[in-house]
């Protein structure tokens, strides 16, 4: 989930490559319009949706050489919410995110590439529960334009990815609770004036 957010940021970096404006060194994420979410299968009946509310993102962007850009994301695992208090407690327990022992999840980009006019791919190392594995996000650049209200240059992007929780040692409840986790990132970032 944290990697997703990181990937989304990376996607923003890729998207910035398509911006008509001058090169951007650093983007500030708009927390009011940024979501790092996930979906996971529940017993085959439905997909359960969750999100993380607290995260820090450091994005360095090279407009001329997108591959030189970088993205570092830190997610506070205790901030997860699936909109159900008791389930959230269970997800924070040692069965899943083990937030008391592993309060943070990190993503560090290792490769950012542009794959189309408005698409890109961000690969990085996701560290969750003390295990580091590569994760890739497919990013779509949605829009880059001055915000209609505050007039600041704002970019928006969407990112999607997939990981297997068992790869990170999160094996409790398999196979009843799904192994594959869908990553959903919707983000907006502002170019500082």
């Amino acid at each position, binding site marked *: 989930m944290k990697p997703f957010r990181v990937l989304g940021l990376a996607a923003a970096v890729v998207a910035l490559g398509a911006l008509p404006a001058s090169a951007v060194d650093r983007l500030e994420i708009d927390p009011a319009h940024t979501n790092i979410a996930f979906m996971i299968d529940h017993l085959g009946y439905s997909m359960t949706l969750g999100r993380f509310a607290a995260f820090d993102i450091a994005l360095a962007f090279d407009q001329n050489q997108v591959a030189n850009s970088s993205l570092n994301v830190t997610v506070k695992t205790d901030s997860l919410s699936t909109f159900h208090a008791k389930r959230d*407690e269970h997800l924070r327990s040692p069965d899943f995110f*083990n937030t008391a022992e592993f309060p943070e999840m990190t993503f560090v980009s290792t490769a950012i590439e542009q794959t189309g006019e408005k698409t890109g791919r961000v690969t990085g190392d996701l560290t969750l529960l003390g295990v580091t594995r590569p994760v890739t996000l497919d990013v779509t650049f949605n829009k880059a334009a001055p915000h209609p209200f505050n007039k600041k240059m704002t970019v928006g992007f969407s990112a999607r990815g997939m990981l297997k929780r068992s790869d990170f*040692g999160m094996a*409790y409840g398999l196979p*009843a609770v799904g192994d594959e986790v869908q990553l959903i990132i919707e983000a907006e970032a502002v170019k500082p004036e």
Partner: protein
Amino acid sequence: MLAGLLSPDNPAFQSAVLPFLLAAAAAGLIRLAGGGGRGALLAGAAVGLALLAAYVAVLGTPPLPPRSSGQKLFYVAAAGLVLGIVLDLGRVRGRGLALVLLAFVAAASVWVGWPAWNRLAAAPDTWMPAVTLLLLLLAAWSLARAAANGIAAAVMLLVAAAGLAIVALTANSASLSQIAGALAAAVGGFLVWNWPTARFPVAGALLFGAMGAFAALATQASLFTRADPWTLAPLALVFLAAAPAARLGIGGAAVRAALSPLVLGFCAALPAALAVALGFWLNGGVYTG
């Protein structure tokens, strides 16, 4: 219904049926293979073996080195099992066995709870790691003293593990609950050979494998789950039940011997029931997924 209960994916099978049957079978096989002397002495190793098998059924084989407290639990139980067997073969008993058990439980609790101890050094805002350790040492000392008293130590371990399983469930830690349940079931599998007539001594192989696992589970529950500390503390009193139970003897010598494990189980169940009641009250009840 029976087929569902015997399904490898069924939590009840993983943490009750499997460890109970494995412990009962392994205890008998060890006794058969080792004879009335060494075999009976080491029969308690069946508890640790069954617990390790149940752990793998619930969570899979943990990596080495382990990364989390739950993964460390597996290796604590395995190390305790081996250490207990070595001490049994070396005929270590009495106070010597008790002192080694105290040292092992202390090491296990500190190792499992190391992230909390580490944070304590930077921000000493909680006594929980130290309180947990002290209660576990009290429990281990009482358990070692009871080991010479027939199967009393095994009865107290069963009740304490069962209580911890339910408290962990109220704190939304299902895997911890399952492993604690597996420990209780494994001890139960050992006890079917020992009631109403005690056949195998509660020696190092059982004490170190089972108490090491209990210490690791209690430390994990205390330091890394949402369990309210007041829901866990009464479980330490379970290990003090032998003294009041001894005063409740009923009938003649033969009847008293047969009933003493049941009387002890009743006395031990009182603080365990208090812990469970507090668990439902303070931890918010059970989430079934």
